[in-house]
Structures are given as C-alpha cells and as structure tokens.
C-alpha cells in the first residue's frame, strides 16, 4: 500500500517531464498548424492573415505561456481542443482508445495462448529436435518486420483467396462483436506473431531456469508427476519473466501500433497520434502522448502488483 502510494507519487513528476519534452519537441519541429492546413498555399497569407490564424490555433504566444495555459487547463481536466477534430482532446482520445486497448489485449491473448504452451513444450523437450523447431519458428517470428507480415497477409488473402476482413469503417465491439473481431483478428495476429515469439522464448528459458530449482526437486521427491511438476510447481514460478515481458509489450501496444494500424486502416491511437503530429494538432499530440505515458506507467504498476500476487517473497517496499 505504502509502495503503491510512493509509486503513484512519482507519476506526476514523470508525466510533467513527458509533457515538457513533447511540448518542446513538437514545437521544435519545423512547420506549424497553419502550414499543415494550407500547405504551400500558406505562403499566400498576408501577415495579418497569418496572425489571425495563429490566434485561431492558439499558437500566437511564446511557448512557455502556451505551456502554462495548457497546464492550467490540465488541472481542470481540460486537455484542450483538437484542431483537426474540433472537439475536446480527451473525447477524441477516448474514442480511439477502445480499439487500441482491444487490439493490444487480443494480441496479448494470442501471444500468451500460443507462446506459453510452445515455450513450456520446448523447455520440457530441451535440446531435442522439437525444441529446436519451436525455437527456430520463434526466432523467425521475432525477426519478421510486422509491416512485411501485414502486407503478406493482406496480399495472400485478397489476391489468393479473395477474402479480406472488412476494411474501412470500423465497428466497435459493443455494436457488432463479430464484425469487430473479424476486423481485429488479422491485425492482432500480425502483432501477436512477434509477441508470441518473445513469449515462447522467455517462457522456455524461465521454465528451464525454474525446473532446476530446489523446490522442483522437492516436488519430485514427493512423487509429483512430470505434468504436476510443470503445471503446479514450475509454472507459477516461471510466470514472472513472462508477466514482465507481456507487461512491457502490452504497454508499448497501448501506445498504438502505428504501422499495423496504418496498413489495416484501423482508427487506433497510434495512427491518431501520427496524424496529429503530421497535422500539427498540438493539443492532440500533447494530450495523447501524456495519455499513452500514463497508461504505460499504469501497466508497469500493474505488472509490479502482479509480481506481488505471483510471488509472496517480493516485498515492494524496496524496489
């Protein structure tokens, strides 16, 4: 509890850091909201026109004043208005977040469902041919760039079989679950492939580690069968590295999978932020990066709490 409080206390600090970095970085990038909207035509604007537009986009003040205003708004729960969407930033983010969350969860589920059994299988068949097979597939999984995989999947399905999940209009889970799952399955597989490969490798090595621990020997001395040793004694102990890895990957995925979202035309957080950067939608970039960072930290916290649940030895007071 105490640990939790202290961890939470560092959140504002880190978020403040993130916000300053993003605030400065996005403003250091050449080009602004005006050129993003008008392109080269922005050169036709008279200085008065330019000022008027700058005021319209709220970029007419020195950056620290802009930051201060933004910060004040933040304390009132107001992240500003997105210039592309014309709506409050938080609304826009929350609209894109469910898809990203769902995609991340689905990828993780796929990764765990495939990766853990594969890793355990490889660990229990250590140095046999089947182990080698699993490891090679896992390594290939880890070494395939996800955009290559995505393009291959789309091309094979559409040109080879004439099928493709519904592109374009995205159905949220609560509106049309079947269609939604259909739309997310392939992206989730694309992301889950490399993820599963990592899970396979880490669960294999964690399992090998744990299987040589003393308490496994104790379990065997009690007459626990090979299966029992693996599932009841070794697995709970081998979970920590798997949870760590999954947590980190999941945290990253919650930031949006830009490339995969782009290829599968999913309106997720990643693409939203990328577009916001390209369109110099400052408020949206700031808000969403902050949101992503917050999620990332929450996930990390949850991973830490999961350690405690998994392993009573871990005392979180000193970390």
């Amino acid at each position, binding site marked *: 509890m105490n640990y939790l409080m202290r961890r939470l206390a560092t959140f504002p600090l880190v978020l403040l850091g993130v916000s300053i970095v993003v605030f400065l970085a996005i403003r250091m*990038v*050449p*080009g*602004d909201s*005006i*050129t*993003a*909207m*008008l*392109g*080269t*035509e*922005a*050169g*036709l*604007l*008279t200085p*008065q*026109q*330019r000022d*008027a*537009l700058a005021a*319209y986009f709220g970029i007419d003040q020195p950056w620290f004043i802009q930051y201060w205003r933004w910060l004040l708004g933040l304390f009132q729960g107001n992240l500003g208005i997105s210039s*592309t*969407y*014309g709506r409050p930033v938080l609304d826009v983010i929350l609209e894109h977040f469910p898809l990203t969350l769902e995609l991340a969860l689905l990828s993780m589920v796929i990764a765990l469902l495939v990766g853990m059994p594969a890793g355990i299988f490889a660990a229990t068949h250590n140095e046999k041919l089947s182990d080698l097979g699993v490891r090679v597939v896992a390594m290939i999984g880890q070494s395939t760039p996800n955009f290559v995989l995505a*393009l291959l999947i*789309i*091309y094979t*399905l*559409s*040109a080879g079989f*004439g*099928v*493709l*999940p*519904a*592109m*374009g*209009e*995205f159905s949220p889970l609560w509106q049309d679950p*079947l*269609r939604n*799952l*259909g*739309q997310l*399955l*392939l992206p989730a597989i694309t992301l889950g492939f490399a993820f599963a490969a990592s899970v396979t490798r880490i669960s294999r090595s964690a399992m090998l580690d744990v299987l040589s621990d003393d308490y496994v020997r104790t379990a065997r001395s009690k007459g626990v069968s090979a299966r029992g040793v693996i599932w009841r004694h070794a697995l709970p102990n081998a979970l920590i590295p798997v949870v760590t890895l999954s947590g980190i990957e999941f945290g990253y995925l919650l930031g949006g999978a830009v490339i995969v979202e*782009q*290829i*599968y*035309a999913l*309106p997720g957080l990643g*693409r*939203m932020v990328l*577009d916001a950067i*390209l*369109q*110099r939608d400052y408020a949206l970039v700031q808000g969403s990066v902050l949101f992503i960072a917050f999620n990332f930290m929450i996930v990390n916290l949850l991973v830490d709490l999961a350690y405690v649940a998994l392993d009573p030895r871990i005392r979180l007071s000193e970390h």
Partner: protein
Amino acid sequence: MVRHIGKKLLTGMTLAAMVAIAALPVQASAATLHMAWSQDATGLDPHKQTAFSSLRLLELIYEPLVRLDANLQITPAIADSWQFSPDGKELSFRLNPKAKFQNGAAVTSADVKASFERILDEKTGAAARANFLSIASIDTPDPANVVFHLSQPDVPILTAMSDVNAAIVPASEIAAGSIGTTTIGSGPFKLEKWDPNSKEVLVANKDWAGGATGVDGIDISVLPDETAILAAMRTKQIDFALLNDPLVATLVPKEASLQLNRVPVLAYHVLQLNPSRKPMTELKVRQAISCAIDRQEVLDTASLGEGKVTGPLTIPALATDPKQLFCYKRDIERAKQLMAQAGYADGFSATVIGATGEPPTAAAEAQVIQSQLAEIGVKLDIKMMELNVYVDAWLKGDFDMAVALNGGRADPYTMYNRYWTKTGNLQKVANYIDDTLDSLMQKGRTETDPAARKAIFADFEKHITEMSPWIWLYTSYSYTAQQKNIAGFEPVPTGSLFSLAKVTIQ
C-alpha cells in the same frame, strides 16, 4: 502426439472460421457508394482548406458560383449566367433561383456578398484571398443578382471563382461563426458524419438544384495504405477509390472486375532551382541542368510512364508543344558546354529536398535526377522530409533545389502570378523574376481576347523555360479506380470528384 496434432488442427480450423466470418462481404444498401482514399480531409472550412482531399470532399458539399467542366470550360453552378462589362471592370451574376442551402434557405446575393467579404477579410485567413484582391466592391441589386466591381480588368477572376475555395456559404453561418464546424452548403451531398482520418458519411441532398443524385449516399473510408485499398477493391468492399501512387494504380487494370480512370491533371512535377543560391544564380548553370535532364526518363522511371512531359502551361488549350521549348530534348554535350562556360566545368554539389510520399514519386524523381545530373558533374544530396517540414523549408526558400508537385489552375495567371510577378506572394520561393516575365503576366491578366491571351502565354512559356529558374518535368494522371458496375463517373483535370453526383450503381 496424436492429441497434439488434433489440438493444432482444431486451432487452425477455428482460426480459418474466424477469418471467414470476418471476410463476409459487407451487404450494404445498393444505393450507397463505398469509396476509399488514403489521405483524409484536414478540415471543413471551404475557404481555408487547400489539401487535395479536403477540396474533393468539400466540392461535394459546397458550390461555388461557377464550375469547370472536363474541358476546363466554365459552366453554371450557383450562378445561372454571368457577364463581364465591356471594360472588364464589372462582373455580374444571376443566381439559380432553385439554389438552396442544406438548411432549406435559398441562396441569395447577400450570401454571395458575405462569402466574398469573408474571403477578403484578412482575419479569416482564406486561402484564395490573393485571387480576389481586384474586387473593389460588391453590389446586391436584388436577391437573385450580384455585381462585382473590380479595380482593374481581371479576366482570371472568373476561373478563380470556380474553385471551392470561393464557395458560397450562408451569411447566417458566417455571422454565427460556425463555418468549419457545421457544414451547410448547397451541393449535392450533405455531410452526416466525419471521423477525421477514419471516415466520412455523405447523404444525398434531395433539394439540390442540380437535380437528383445517382446514389443515396457515399461512405468514404480512409485506408492509408494504397495496397490495402486495392486489396479491399478486389474483395468488393470498396466501389470507388482515389489513388495517388502510379505503382498501385497500374495494378488496377489487371483485375477483371475493376476499371481505372485516369485523366491528365493540371498539377505539374517540377524541379525547382533556387536562383538566389550559387551557382544556380548563373543562367548557364540553370540551363545546363535543364539540358542534362531527360524528362521522359524521369517520368518513365518514377511514374512508370504514367503521364506526359510538360512545359509550364498544363492547361491543354494553352499549352505549347514541349518539343519547341528550351532543351526539352536531352543534350548532355550542350549541358557540359554551358557548365564550362559558367565556370563550373568540374560541376558542383547541391542538396535537393523532397517531401516523403507527397507526391509518392518524389523520392524516385529525386533519384533519377540525381543520377542524370551526375553526368555533368553535379553531385546531388537527397533530403526527404516530412511534408510539413518540407513546406516550412520551401516557404522560406531554404533549399538549393526541390522536387515538387505544384497545383495547377485552369487559368495561367491564377496559376503563376504568385511566383512569376514582381509582387507575387511566393516570389521569395521562386527567387527569380525579370521584366519580361512580369509584363507578360500583367498583359495576360487584362487581355480578354482568347487568341491574344494564348500568344502572350506562349511567349511567357518560351521565356521562362529558357531562363530555367525551374525545370518543369511532367504532368501525371489523377487516378480513380472503380468496380465496373459503377457508371457515370467523369474524371476532370482539376481532379474534382463532382461527377460523383451523377454516378449510379448498376
């Protein structure tokens, strides 16, 4: 082992089933056109938007006074008829009495006046304001008639008024300050929903003065990857799509059920030199570059030959045969001589900038040019930048050379006055002007006789290619792909999708 295989098989089958469910074609109402493009509109204020997609979307919702047809001839839109006074200083319009805004109100001369005043107001930041600076005052003798008083004769202003950037918006909405947030136009479709970077839902405007539309509505999806657009068309999820990349577009004809529409556009691919930077300050150096570049090869490689080598004028009615222009046939020997004469026999180094993916051929063009110029000793460094970064550098004139795809207009004056007149807003980008260019442009602006105008601009074209501040390369096509059961789409050189209003699904 048997159990393992069984399990795997089962997983495999479940997976296949889920993909199959996912792949069920979307059964939508037959009268809705499913459309896709890779870049979404960036905003909804017709006076402020210049992005290609924004214009294409807004053209379906808003109407200007007049419109251009496939031959770039001016045809009625909100205005039924129009007339220049003999001295060319008065332009009057009669509005279509049936024209109605989507809120039910009739389009009146007051709306026209308010719209143009909004465009001219510097506080608006309207994109096309520069084209209308000759408007001295606007009279509204009655709700159906409007008269523009011009400070000087201005022929191109009529073409400029055909642009959606000069769309007529309701005076009431201007007063309410809600242009850009609500979309109330007088065009064939109403915007029902817009999720930026995701989709637009358009429904037919039953009250449109132009008559009934061919479809009940248009669903536009944003599919950022054009390969994915093609894949979606193969599986019939998409009826109609806008394509940018010739590499993808050329794949469309290979599909039996798909049809590719292409039309040469007014926009032109160009290598902009910066004549304020050494050694491009030297005429002979610029000319040498012009002679060293094989325009056809740039076109063949970067765009797979999809397009046409062009001079500065891309308007078919005015264009000069490129063969007659300076050094349009590659001449390496001459280029080398010119370099030697300018004192750069050993060549020089320079940087060429381009925008990533804008156009998609930019990087390829730069690479072909780089390889061609290497033959006369010019060592080019390529720097590809994110679009906005590029625009920023471009507007500051902060480059040695730039590959660009610049927009074209139906009138050469509107198209080029910003660059090639002494008062042009983008003189600081063009960085080159001489008296000949300036006077030719001024003459072209006021001349009302079409034949005389053509001669003036032919001279302009000859002169500017000889001065070679820029190396015009080629014009490409605007591509649309459609299922073969879609009928009635008529592509136009401006790229406008306005004819979607009359498209039907069979």
